[in-house]
């Protein structure tokens, strides 16, 4: 199996580091360069993970879909709550865009890792 879970987990780690970087400057505006670089690498890792995933022939797609769907729902709620907190704290402009994209990677990477780990052991039929 391709290292889909490794890639999505690494993407998660990068956005967590980026999030800590931004949060450590709050309420002052944070320098966005490093956080943006981390986000770009995280998005690239997720794209590669999606590409590798799509190329798998024998895979339990039904199991993957079910687990991904429910995990996505749960982590969209968690990400939405964090986004709400940032908006409520008057985070605006580039910082808000960065936070939103990081939370999007977060909300996609966790379900990808969970669903892939579950489906790789499931019966493809």
């Amino acid at each position, binding site marked *: 199996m391709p290292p889909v879970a490794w890639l999505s987990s690494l993407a998660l780690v990068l956005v967590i580091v980026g999030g800590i970087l931004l*949060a450590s400057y709050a309420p002052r505006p944070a320098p966005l360069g490093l956080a943006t670089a981390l986000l770009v690498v995280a998005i690239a890792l997720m794209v590669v993970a999606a590409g590798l995933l799509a190329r798998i022939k024998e895979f339990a797609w039904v199991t993957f879909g079910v687990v991904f769907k*429910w995990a996505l729902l749960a982590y969209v709620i968690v990400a939405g*709550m964090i986004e709400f*907190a940032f908006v409520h704290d008057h985070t605006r402009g580039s910082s808000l865009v960065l936070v939103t994209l990081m939370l999007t990677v977060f909300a996609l990477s966790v379900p990808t890792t969970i669903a892939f780990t579950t489906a790789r052991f499931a019966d493809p039929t």
Partner: protein
Amino acid sequence: MGGTVSEDTIVGALAPSHAHPREKIQVVPLAGLPFVALAVIFVALSIGFNWRWGLMFNHVVGGGLWTGIDLFVGFVIGPILGRLSVPARAEFAARFMPKMVIIMPTVVMMTLATGFQVARQLGNLAASSPNHAWLIVSFCVVGVMAGVALSVLEPANIAVLYEMNKPVPSGERIGRLMKRFIYTAGLTGAMQIATLVIMTRLGSR
């Protein structure tokens, strides 16, 4: 880790028999979802209205449960589980893990979403605050715990439950995934000790 029982034993323990047909495990206990919804609404209202008691309640209760559960699972349940026979371990996991699926993300969400607001209200986020450095350390500790929990512990938890729902589960696979669960629970338990030190320091300054 009590791995002396053969794989056939766990498969036998999990396989359905005519006398006792094996119950299908409900991966997400639906009865718990209304409580999760209530927690989400409570957190949202507390943040939205800058409700200090609500923020503090969610942060202290969520954080206390998160820390307590991690320590208890990592250092009490984990070692006991490791010494149980494999069928007993599987039987316990089938009842325990679905509850963790619903409890842990909820208490983590309660703690993190409100923790940032509490820090902001108390002025601990300001760079001039004497607590600022401790706060950044706590962000890092939480970051490591979140990374471990979300990329290793939670996927292993769900995968074990799906494996147990198969007509013929693989004992070797369940054992391997549960080892991952037990070790990472121990690791996050150890990280929680750091959280206790940091939070009690923050609270006493």
